[in-house]
């Protein structure tokens, strides 16, 4: 590999710098901010967002967009909760939810591909549909109480660090998904085809790449990861709620963009999305630690950061064009 920093990695490096800056700032300002517990919680609390954002990143890389993420996460949550409440074994309920998620995404991809429809509108439709279906499953929040959840997921699968501290399974899921997705994007023909598709679809077609298969695959993958995010959310919240996670797709898009993925497609880096998610999470944590600030400050800071990163990307691409 090269020693010099490739141009396309500059945004990722910049967001990594922001992440370290925020973390360092937090450590300097607040005692206990640098503790392992805060770090672990950062991963655990944001696991469902991170997993869904990885799916969003694939979609954006392919030149599309997915607005159905929040709805699918909520739908999955309420579906799993309802199924478990009705006596279905949790592993079976989770499997059904994952399958449905992949199917739902794949169907949206099929519509986009077969009729050449704009992804924005198709997934907007998907957003309303999944939200509505969630309320059809059950109109109110359902708590999940099952030995599988209380014992297996929360205790057995958690990694003990010390007697009072353990890494929750949700954090493990996040890291595993990011690692797997990074490999998928970098080391498989499917992953490379996603980049090619997002960079120039017409060329990808003429180069003989399987454009249709890739496009449907990307939305199926995003649907699957949204559903997985939903499953992980049930581990985290021990409940399902059809009204939850409104607007999560926008957090996911923000995380991807802050992580260096360019919205027009073709350029981006999966670990960058994890960095983006952690930045969003850190801002939240900082505001919680600070205590006086209204939580809406999170949104304001995220907004400012987004502007900053979009500007940075634009400047880099202009510089690249000139040289």
């Amino acid at each position, binding site marked *: 590999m090269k020693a010099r920093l490739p141009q396309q990695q500059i945004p990722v490096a910049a967001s990594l710098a922001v992440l370290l800056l925020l973390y360092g700032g937090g450590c300097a300002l607040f005692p206990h901010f640098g503790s392992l517990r805060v770090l672990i919680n950062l991963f655990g609390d944001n696991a469902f967002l991170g997993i869904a954002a990885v799916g969003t990143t694939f979609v954006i890389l392919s030149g599309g967009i997915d607005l159905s993420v929040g709805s699918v996460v909520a739908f999955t949550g309420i579906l799993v909760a309802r199924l478990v409440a009705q006596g279905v074994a949790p592993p079976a309920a989770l499997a059904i939810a994952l399958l449905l998620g992949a199917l739902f995404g794949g169907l949206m991809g099929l519509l986009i591909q077969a009729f050449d429809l704009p992804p924005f509108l198709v997934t907007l439709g998907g957003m309303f549909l999944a939200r509505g279906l969630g309320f059809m499953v059950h109109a109110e929040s359902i708590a999940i109480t099952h030995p599988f959840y209380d014992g297996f997921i929360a205790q057995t699968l958690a990694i003990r660090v010390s007697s009072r501290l353990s890494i929750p399974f949700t954090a493990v899921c996040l890291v595993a998904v990011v690692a797997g997705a990074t490999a998928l994007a970098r*080391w498989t023909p499917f992953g490379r085809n996603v980049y090619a598709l997002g960079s120039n679809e017409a060329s990808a077609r003429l180069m*003989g790449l399987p454009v249709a298969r890739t496009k449907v695959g990307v939305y199926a993958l995003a649907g699957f990861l949204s559903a997985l995010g939903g499953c992980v959310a049930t581990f985290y919240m021990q409940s399902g709620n059809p009204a939850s996670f409104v607007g999560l797709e926008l957090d996911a898009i923000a995380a991807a963009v802050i992580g260096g993925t360019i919205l027009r497609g073709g350029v981006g880096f999966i670990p960058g999305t994890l960095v983006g998610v952690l930045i969003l999470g850190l801002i939240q944590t900082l505001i919680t630690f600070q205590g006086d600030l209204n939580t809406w400050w999170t949104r304001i800071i995220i907004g400012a950061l987004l502007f900053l990163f979009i500007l940075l990307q634009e400047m880099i691409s202009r510089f690249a064009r000139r040289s």
Partner: protein
Amino acid sequence: MSLPVLEARGITKRFAGVTALDGVDFNARAGEVHALMGENGAGKSTLIKVLTGAYARDEGTVRVGGEPIAPRCTGDAEAAGIATVYQEVNLIPDLSVAENIGLGRQPLRWGCIHWRAVRDRARRALARLGLTLDVDQPLSTCSIAVQQLVAVARALDVSARVLILDEPTSSLDEREVGELFAVIRRLRADGMAIVLVTHFLDQVYAISDRITVLRNGRLVGEFAAADLPRLELVSHMLGRPCDELPAAGRAAASLPPPGAPLLAVRDFGRKNVLRPLDLHVHAGEVLGLAGLLGSGRTELARLLFGIDRPDCGEMKVAGHLTKIRSPGASLRLRFGFTPEDRKTQALLPNLSVRENLIVALQVRRGLWRRVPRAEQDQLTARFIQALGIKASGPEQAIKHLSGGNQQKVLLARWLATEPRLLILDEPTRGIDVGAQADLERLLAELRAQGLALIFISSEISELVRNSQRIIVLRDHAKVAELAGGEVEESTVMRAIADEGGAPPPHG
């Protein structure tokens, strides 16, 4: 004569009852460059698409190395040994050079892409063309010419025996064409059969061994390039005898235009863009601007039309001192300009022929005085007829017209404003020989009607045929002004090449 590697016999292709190809034979032999020539609509692209599997043929056989093939997609054709490079670079700008060569056929190891093998393979594919590149750099950082060569490397990375180049040179400058041709010669020496589709006659003669001419979907003939005089080739393409060709109708270089010039500039220039120069053009005169790509021709045209502003010198229009501050001001002076890049700078692709045609007139009249629909229709009908614009009707979207017909509509756009001066930047680029002849005829007519014309072209023969005077630019400065008997290809070439310098490229 070696045996053909690619042998197509009796290829017929129909589209909804229209026969696009009618029993065409075509051969490509190892170690030969075979040019496929014809006007737009002759069936060149249809034949190429049948060979590359983009279209399924209706009749006929195609054999590669004696084996019959029936490709149904570009992948099938590639597997059979037919590789294709298209006019526009069809690669992925954001990915690396290596990846562009390997995409879709990456070597795998343990189910993962073996990146080192991908890079090695790309280096080997480029080395075969005599190129050494940093294969890790993003493709977008390469020049268009290098991207084109990367496309060739990709096409050849499969065990190709036939390489089809579909108008590969249309966006390259002369030096880049030279680079591409060096690669083609190298491949020819290696025994590759090369099929070249191009509009440029010079290039055909510079590199081809054999020429096949198509006309109206039929085969006119296959000729050895050395035995086919240029004029005869053009007459085969047009299906007209030689004496009707525009080449015969050299513009009268005799008449010295009377009276004061319509447009005259002195010490006219702009820092870093154009060194100050003098220029004048009379009504009823065609002033040619010659020079290589990047010599400042387009920059001069933009300054004259007020798109960019000069920072020195003075301009007189019909004897009066004038400053043009914008294209709108030019329009009010009754000037017109058709830019070099028709697609992005002149066409309104989704609008109709009529809308494209009346837009300049409408701008001149202003926002509040709409050109009445009846007048629009009448103007459109008049120009469609007068210029011989081939469209299904005035309401057809202009993007569906051929390049030549688009150019005619753009010309009509300005003619509708009844201009005094027209600046035409490369009006014949990318249009077929027939439409070129039409445009040249039109130029002569407009001149006869008393228009002043500034004509920019890279084809020196075309400039010489149509201009009374020629200004030669080199490195953003005027280096010569030729009039009368000096308006000769050889003189222009010498001026461009600065006498004792490099000899003219394809003289």
